[in-house]
């Protein structure tokens, strides 16, 4: 552990957490599970504000959607019946592929949204389903879709805010998640989340996000357009493989080359779309 902080606080409510944050003027941080903060090297940090006692650990079903409290651990998400049932098990499929059981015992859902690592799995899935983040700062309560939040200067914004809840909306179709990594539990070399609505044997709508490219998950709007109105099946998946290889924007990092990502993205997306189509068709029956 590398942090030489001066003080550790146990916030009793959101207001106290916010006033402590503001008193530290950028030198304090919210602590949820602590997985990232314990590994960080921020020499500027002077105080940590533990929010585990704020009552923000819960999973509630609401009109087919899900409200997940910010300090809910990934294990608690997996143990919640509502979360396991959400979108036919899609969320459980994603969370079950995050790291390993002891890390999921510690990592929180809000922490994953706040840290939003580009290589992480949850951001890609949350972008695909259009999740909404709810947070509080000195000005009051706010909400935004994750992709809007992450497009802006969210780290600066969150340095004086507390995420309270993440809302995952209901969908009629089905979603599937795909991840390529060196071994089970390792972080992704590439990941994707694909949602399809099927009506009269055709794709009525598509939501496709690709992540760890090595950038954070974002939607491939051109691919969503390409899929809409088409009949799901091997012919369409072949077009997906070819078009993705030709058009996808990927880069290199120390884990994988851009050439590898370009070659791997098409098959990964085609495979995951095929699973989503199968689930969506089965759901209709």
């Amino acid at each position, binding site marked *: *552990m590398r942090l030489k*902080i001066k003080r*550790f606080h146990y916030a009793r409510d959101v207001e106290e957490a916010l006033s402590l944050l503001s008193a530290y003027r950028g030198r304090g941080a919210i602590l949820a599970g602590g997985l990232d903060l*314990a590994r960080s090297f921020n020499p500027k940090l002077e105080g940590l504000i533990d929010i585990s006692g704020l009552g923000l650990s819960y999973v509630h079903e609401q009109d087919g959607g899900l409200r997940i409290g910010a300090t809910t651990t990934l294990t608690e998400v997996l143990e919640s019946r509502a979360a396991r049932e959400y979108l036919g098990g899609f969320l459980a499929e994603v969370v079950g592929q995050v790291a390993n059981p*002891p890390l999921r015992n510690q990592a929180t859902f809000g922490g994953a949204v706040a840290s939003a690592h580009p290589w992480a799995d949850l951001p890609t899935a949350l972008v695909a389903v259009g999740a909404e983040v709810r947070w509080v700062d000195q000005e009051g309560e706010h909400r935004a879709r994750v992709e809007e939040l992450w497009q802006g200067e969210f780290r600066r914004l969150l340095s004086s805010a507390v995420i309270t809840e993440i809302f995952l909306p209901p969908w009629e179709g089905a979603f599937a998640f795909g991840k390529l990594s060196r071994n089970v*539990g390792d972080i992704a070399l590439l990941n994707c989340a694909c949602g399809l609505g099927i009506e009269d044997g055709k794709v009525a709508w598509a939501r496709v996000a690709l992540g760890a490219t090595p950038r954070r998950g974002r939607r491939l709007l051109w691919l969503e357009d390409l899929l809409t109105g088409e009949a799901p099946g091997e012919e369409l998946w072949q077009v997906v493989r070819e078009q993705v290889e030709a058009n996808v924007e990927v880069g290199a990092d120390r884990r994988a080359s851009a050439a590898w990502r370009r070659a791997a993205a098409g098959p990964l997306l085609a495979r995951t779309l095929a699973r989503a189509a199968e689930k969506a068709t089965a759901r209709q029956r």
Partner: protein
Amino acid sequence: MQEAMKIYFELNGEQRYVEIEPGESLLSLLRRLGMKSVKSGCETGDCGACTVLLNGRAVRSCTTFAAQVRGKRVTTLEGLGDVDDPHPLQEAFVEAGAVQCGFCTPGMILVAYELLSKNGAPTPQEVRAAISGNLCRCTGYVKIVDAVLLAAQWKREGKWR
């Protein structure tokens, strides 16, 4: 200047009141308190050698701040058993030949303990998933999976505590 702070927590069934640095890791605190089963491998959350149970759930002590365990229950391998009075899981590891250098063993046993507390009849695949975050550089994992399955069988037969 770091201000030292004091916390209460339960360690292996005993109430403790200890002074800690605000940024100190749980790993560092437990080693200071003589819990030598808690190993420092990577200190980045990757290897699992520093695993302990926090309120019955396996966590990395290197990525947990000591201050986070205030008012909570911490169990290290010392809390399960020792050489004179080993826990059935410890015996199963010896019986199955699942221990070589032993560096990963405390973490493996604690992760297995959490698994068996939730699932009395795990499949080999479920055991592999449970230990997937704990690295072993010696055994090749096969004997560790055997040991956990053996312990599960003993638990079902009532040889447990």
